[in-house]
Each structure stands twice: as C-alpha cells, then as structure tokens.
C-alpha cells in the first residue's frame, strides 16, 4: 500500500460544509439559489469522490492530516478501499436525494426548509468524514457530528411525536457516543494509537478479558446506529422525519455509518484473527442472526409503509454485520457490497413511500389498493427495489447475497446460510403484498384513477436509483467498480 498525500478527502468533506454555510446565508432570500447550492455541492462532491477511485484501485491510500491532537493522535483522513466504497455510496445517493428533496419539500410546502437543507448538507459532510477517517478518534468526531446534524431532521415536523422521536434518537445515539468515547480512550491508553489498520491493531495489547469487554462495548455502541436488535428502537420512531431524511439518512447515511463503524471495529481495530481466536465472532453472528429473523416478523406486523421499511432496514443492516462476523473473505466482501447495493435499493423504496405520501397522503400499506395504475412508474420502481432487497436476480441484491451465502459456506457454518435464505423469504413475504395490492387489487371505489404521477423532481430520482439497482445487478463492476473495490478491501484485511 502506497500512501499518497492528497487534499481530496478534505475537499470532499468541505464542499458540503461550505454549501451548508451558503444555504444558511442565502436560504431565506431565494429558494432557487439555496437549492442550486445543494445540487451544485452534491455534484462537485461526487466528482471529487469518484476521482479518487483510480488511485485507490491502483492500491494507493490517500491521506491528509489536518492537525495533531495528541501524541499518536491525529485529525486525519485516509481513503482506503472500504472507506471509498461507503463514500461513493453516500455521495452518489446525495445527488438523487437533493433532487428528490426539492420535489418533496415543495410538494408538501414544508416549513423551515433552510434548516432542513442546512442540516442535510452537514449530515452528508459528516458521513463522508466517517467514511474517510483514518482513525477511531476522527471517526468519532464525525460520528457525533452526524448524530447532531440528524437530530433537527428527525424533529423537523415539530409535532409532539416528532419531538419524542428526536429525543429517543438522541438518547440512544448520545449514550452510545459516550460509551464509544470511553472504550476509545481505553484502547488509546493500551496501544498508544487509534489508527485503523487492516487486520486490527489491538490484539495482544491487554488481557483477553479486557479486549473482549472493549469489543462488546464498541460493537454494541456502534451497533446502536446499526440498529442491532435490542438497540433498534429509535429507528422506527425516527420515521416521523420527512421521507428524504428517512431515505438518505435512515436507510443510507446514519445507519450505514453505524454498520461502517461496526465493520471498522471488527476488521480494522480488532481484526478477524482476534475474533476468531476468542470465539467472539460466533457470539456476534448469533446476535445479528436473531435480529435478522425477528426484525422480519416485526416488519410483517407493520401497516405504515415507512415503519415496515425501517424494520427491513434493520434486517439488512444485520445481514451486513453477519457477513463481517463470519470472517471469511467472501462473506466480508458480500457484506461490504451489501452496504452499497442495499443503499440503492432501500433508497428507492423510501423514495416511493415519499412520492405516494406527497401525491395521495397515504401512509399505510392497506390503503395502496390499485395505486399501481395511478402511479405505474413509482410502483414499478418499488417492485424493482423490493426484488432487490429479497435478492432476486437480476437485481444487485442478488450479487451481494450470493457472496454472503458463499461466505457462510466457507465459514463452515451452514446455519447462517439458512438465516440468509429465511430472511430472503420473509422479505418477500412483507414486500410482495404491497406490489400485489398496488397492481392487482381493485380499489374499493370503482373509479379508476387515471395516470397521475408524483412531481418530476421525485419520480426521476427514484427511477434512477431503481435503474441503478438493475444495472448494478447485471454489470456489477460498472461505473465505479464496486466489486473491485470491495475485493481490494478484503484482500488488504485478509492479507494484512
């Protein structure tokens, strides 16, 4: 691995911060200007992030140090393959969400739009910061920033329910934050460094019991954002947020940041070897398997579309962690790919939920009868997204699940293969009724609503993401070489 010093990671993060300031300054005066800042920043950010791909694929690591905080502790960015994967995902989907947000916010004439766009831009910066962090401390800095930037978005509606959701969100994530802080401080005192290293760096620095304790606290506290089962409660509650927020943040940025953190901890702090030696992996695997199965049943019981999607998110996040916990090369690769692919699919589904809400003010599954005729493009995209989440070829969900299944076989734990398969079946059980209702069930009223789609600003992004879900399924290495990047990351971890 060659280290290349480059200011690009910093630029990528700063773009949206600058945009946030511009939004705040011009927001109240001109709506169009405000939203063009958002879009401009998202495009620039995407270009910067993608421009890093070739260099990383060459086996380089891009590094940028801002300042030294303490001996052995830097505020530092380092773009490795895994971080880049997450960075690409977030920056790509931000473009889509920017357009979608405009349609959504204008369609519903929401209040406090400036605050909304401001916090959104900050949240994206924080997400990229998490992706590009070189060490646990930098990651923590951005992790907390993300928490705080998301809080106003959750409480956006300012109804008692939204405020309660916001409170619950803060309680969970801030508590997790201080636990991370404590564990991080202990690790720093044990090892004198917090730099991520493929294959881990803490093994052997303290007694096994101490390390076990640290592993549990760190995984569980990052697991709060990753919504591992006893700690998932905030996510369905946070669905009171406007749909673009649920889409980008609660399907991609925030929860994936949690998963990303868990994976960093497993693979880059403790390392597969340590997990394997202590047998912690099997513990973690069973824990997330429990989440995978139980969340499906919860999802089945939900009538509200967004809540149902939320439980599906919980399910898929745990699938990613299970992939990493299995510790075989294929499983880890599948997990990493699933971070990216699930992002595309789930954001489609959320976009659809929002489009339905803007157009018809319907929020429940039971009200969707016959909607497929009114909004065929939207519901068609939903069908593609649902297929993807269930892992049906030719969508991209199939590819990641394929690797995950291979990985579970490689780990000689056949039971987890069944977990993957069962969850795919259950996914189908709660997604396809929606598709069925929309396309095949007649409305109770006899009137056949004609073609009446959601605003263009909303339909275009959701069709684009659905399209990408398909394209990535057929040509998984298209555009940004997701598979190659993931393979490179796995190679570093396993080789290191």
């Amino acid at each position: 691995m060659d280290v290349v010093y480059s200011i690009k990671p910093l630029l990528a993060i700063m773009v949206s911060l600058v945009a946030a300031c511009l939004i705040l300054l011009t927001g109240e005066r001109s709506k169009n200007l405000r939203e063009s800042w958002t879009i401009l920043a998202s495009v620039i950010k995407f270009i910067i992030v993608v421009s890093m791909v070739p260099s990383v694929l060459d086996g380089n690591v891009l590094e940028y140090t801002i300042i030294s905080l303490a001996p052995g502790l830097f505020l530092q960015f380092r773009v490795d393959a895994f971080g880049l994967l997450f960075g690409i995902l977030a920056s790509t989907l931000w473009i889509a969400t920017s357009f979608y947000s405009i349609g959504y916010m204008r369609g519903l004439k929401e209040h406090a739009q400036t605050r909304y766009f401001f916090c959104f831009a900050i949240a994206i910066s924080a997400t990229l910061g998490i992706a590009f962090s070189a060490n646990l401390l930098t990651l923590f800095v951005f992790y907390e920033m993300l928490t705080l930037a998301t809080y106003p978005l959750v409480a956006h509606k300012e109804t008692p329910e939204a405020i309660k959701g916001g409170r619950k969100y803060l309680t969970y994530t801030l508590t997790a934050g201080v636990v991370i802080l404590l564990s991080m401080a202990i690790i720093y005192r044990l090892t004198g460094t917090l730099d991520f290293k493929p294959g881990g760096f803490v093994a052997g620095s303290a007694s096994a019991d101490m390390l076990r304790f640290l592993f549990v606290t760190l995984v569980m506290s990052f697991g709060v954002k990753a919504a591992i089962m006893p700690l998932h409660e905030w996510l369905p509650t946070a669905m009171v947020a406007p749909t673009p927020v649920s889409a980008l943040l609660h399907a991609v940025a925030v929860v994936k940041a949690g998963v990303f953190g868990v994976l960093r901890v497993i693979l880059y702090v403790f390392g597969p070897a340590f997990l394997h030696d202590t047998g912690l992996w099997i513990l973690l695997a069973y824990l997330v398997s429990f989440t995978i199965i139980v969340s499906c049943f919860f999802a089945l019981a939900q009538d509200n579309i967004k809540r149902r999607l939320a439980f599906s998110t919980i399910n898929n996040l745990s699938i990613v962690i299970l992939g990493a916990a299995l510790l075989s090369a294929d499983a880890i690769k599948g997990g990493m790919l699933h971070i990216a692919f699930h992002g595309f699919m789930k954001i489609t589904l959320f976009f659809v939920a929002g489009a339905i809400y803007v157009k018809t003010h319907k929020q429940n599954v039971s009200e969707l009868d016959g909607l497929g005729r009114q909004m065929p493009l939207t519901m068609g995209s939903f069908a593609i997204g649902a297929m993807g989440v269930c892992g049906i070829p030719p969508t991209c969900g199939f590819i990641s699940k394929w690797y995950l299944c291979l990985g579970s076989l490689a780990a000689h734990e056949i039971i987890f293969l069944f977990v993957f398969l069962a969850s795919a079946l259950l996914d189908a059980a709660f997604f396809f009724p929606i598709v069925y209702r929309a396309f095949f069930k007649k409305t109770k009223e006899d009137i056949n609503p004609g073609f009446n789609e959601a605003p263009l600003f909303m339909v275009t992004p959701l069709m684009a993401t659905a399209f990408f879900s398909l394209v990535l399924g057929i040509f998984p290495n298209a555009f940004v070489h997701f598979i190659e990047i993931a393979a490179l990351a796995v190679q570093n971890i396993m080789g290191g």
Partner: protein
Amino acid sequence: MIAEQFPALIIVFPLITALLINVVGWWWIRPCFYMSILALAVSFISSIGILNTVVTQGIIHYKLGGWDPPWGIEYVVDHLNAFILVIVSFIGLLICIYSKKGIEQEMPKKIPQFYSIYTLLVMGLLGMTVTGDAFNLYVLLEIASLASYALIAMGEDRAPLASFNYLIMGTIGACFYLLGVGYLYIVTGSLNMADLSELLPKLYHSKAVLVAFAFFLIGIGIKMAFFPLHVWLPDAYTHAPSSVSAFVAGTMTKVVAYVLMRVMFTIFRPYFSIELIPATTVLGWTAVAAMMYGCVLAIAQHDLKRMLSYILIAEVGYIVLGISMANRMGLTGAILHIMNDALMMACLFSVAGAIMFKIGNRDITNFRNQQLNKKMPFTMAAFTITALSVIGIPPTCGFFSKWYLVIGAIDAQQWVFAVALILSSLLSAIVFFKVIEKIYFKPREPVHPDSGGTHEDVVMDEAPISMLIPIYIMVGGILILGILSGKIISTVIQFAVPASF
C-alpha cells in the same frame, strides 16, 4: 525593557484606571467604558507578552520594590499562571465590550461605578494569578471578592440578599485560607510560595501543616463553589447583572481552581498532597458527587441562569476531578478544562444576558412562545454550539478536555471516575437539549386561543452588535481551540504540569 515590567503592568494599570474611572465618572460618564477597555486591553497585551516570555525564556521572577524573596513580595509567572493570565484578561476584555449595552439598560445611573469595580475585579483576579506570595494572594483574593460582592449586588431585586449570603460564605472561605497561611507562617516563618515549598518537606509530619492544608482546602473549596460548599453560588450568579455573571462565572471559580493547584502542587509538594495524605481521594470522590449533583439539579431548573449556575458547579467538579487524578493526563485535562470552561461559561452567561436584554425574561419554558430561534438566530446558534461544547461533542473544545480527563481517569485506574465523567456528560446533554428543543422544536402554544389566530410573523430582533461580537469571538474560540488543543498542550500545558508527574 517594558517586557520585563509586564507582571507589574498587568496589575497596576487596571488598578490605576479603576480609580481614575471613579474620579472621572463624577463629571463625565462617557469615557468610563473606553478607559476600562483600554486598561483591560493593556492587561491582555501584557499577559500575551508574559506568556510569550515564559514560553521562550522560562519562568519570570518579578521582585516588587526590588526586595529579594522571601522577604519581599515576589511575582512568579510560570507556564501555568501565564496561561491562566491570558484566559482571564481575554475574557475580562471581551465581557467588558459585551457589557456596554447591558449596563446602560440595567443600571444607567451606576455606569462609572460599574466599570470602576469591574476593572478592579479583573485586576484582583489577575493579581491572584500572578502573585507568588501566599499572603498577597489572600489580599488580592479579597479585593476580587469584594468587587464581586458589590457587582453582584448591583443586579436584580433579590441580588443584595444573594450577595450578602455570598459575602458571608466568601468571608468564611477567605478566613480559612488566611488561617492556613497563618499556620504555615508559624511553622516556617515564610510566606513566599517557593520558599514554603523548600521549607515544608521537613515538616510534613507536623500536625500544624496538616491542619493548614485542611484549612486551605476548605477555604478554596468555598471560594470556588466546590460541592458541598457551593450553596452561595446559584443565587449569586442568577441575580447578578448579566455581564457580571458572565465574567464571574467564566473566570472566578477557575482562578480559584488555579489557586488550588498552586497550593497542592507548589506550596505543598505532590508527594504530600497525593501520597502522604488521602487528599486527592477525598477530592476526587467529592468531585464526582459535585458533577452528578450539579447536572441533576440543573435539569430541574427553569431559570436559564440558575440552570447554568448548577452546570458551573458540575464544571468545577470536572476541574477538581482532573486535579485529583494526580497524573499527567488528568492534570492536563484539568488545565485545559479551565480554559475551555472559562470560555464556555462566559459565553453561555453572555447569551443568557443577551436574551435578558431583548426579552427581559429568561424563563426556559417561555422560550418557544418568544420565537427565539427566529428573533435572535445568531444568539441562539451561539448558545447551541456552546451547549454542545459543554456536553462534550467533538470537535468543540469541551470534548478535548473531557478526552484528557477520561484518559487521566483510566491512567489512574479509577473506573468510577471515568464512568462518572461520561455519565455527567449525558446528564448535561439532557439539560441542554431540553433547552435547545424548546428553542427550536417545541410547538408553540396558540397566541389567541379564543380566535385561534395565527402567529404573527416574527421579525429578527437580534442583540446589539457589541454583544454579538464578543459572543462570537468566544464561540470561535470554542470551535478552534478544541482543534488546536494538541498544540496548546505541547507548547504550554505540558510544562505547567508538575515535572514529577
């Protein structure tokens, strides 16, 4: 040449100006403010000069009147008090700028008196920091305290009573300090701190020395409102004029905390305070109690300033906890926290003052109806950022001092301390998010319940620019100093920590 005189200049200039303001104010009120600014600016520049000298050339010894210590009074400036000097004079200058409009509104008749006493107060605190003589410290402590009693009494209706109680408590504290000095003088015959430090080790097993140490701790504990000796603080700081509470909350307790460090680690050697007697253990556990108590009581308050006062009690707990860990990291955290907390508290109380200035009321439950987020967006943004810093969210400076404190607790193998630190950080999150929620998100009660009328659009009605600029300088400090903390520690603080750690 003038650089050599900075330690005297930093005290004498404000002193003379304070009196000059008093005289000039009888005939001409207008220049009082500018004179005060000038004096504090000179102090600030001197303190920067001192810090620069200390960092480049080492410890400064300044003999007042040319008398050699231990007979004469000596001003000793090392890295620790040079650092504190900069903080105190900086905050003093900022709050002085900030106070202009507030004082004109709160006490139009007493402007010269205010600036005169205010300058005297800053001078007292600077003097406490700069002096190397135990008795001189007592005198300057009382000058600062007397000035603060008078300033606090200038506040709202209940202020005189609060100030009176503070005066009684404060005098007890000062008397205990004086007794401590007396005991040390009896056994050693010296008042010079460095001299005492040389003479005392042979007498560490004397009971008089032990009693002196206990008296010091009690006296200092009262003066810095260390739980359970804090009872005077919430009332006094709540009812004081806004600018006074901003300055006093920011610096007074911190300077006294500095005195605690001096007593524990300079007058007495760390060997005595840490190994010989269980002072650090007692202090540590009390500090934990202080943190919990302050945060929990802050949750229950609906008066913004009173809430902040309880937070301040908890913050004092942080500093003492850092001192009591008795290791390099903990003490680094404590010193860093002195700086951060001075900024944060001064900023929060300034914001409370700005709200008072515009709304005339600081009841938290009333914030939403006042539409504060629309009316005073900049002030509220400053409040939010500072609140995040108090909670300890990176990258604000509050996080970094907490980070060092937690590491200090881990190094000291005191897991309870570490857990208490993060727990109190959570509690303060509850305190501040309760307010932030009320500022930004709480649904408003309808203005006209009968007609169900709509809310009229609120126009932005910000605090005057002379208030906003100091507030934002402090907010900038909060944001930047956190990132720079590594640099600050490597240039200044690491030399301020006793070498034996």
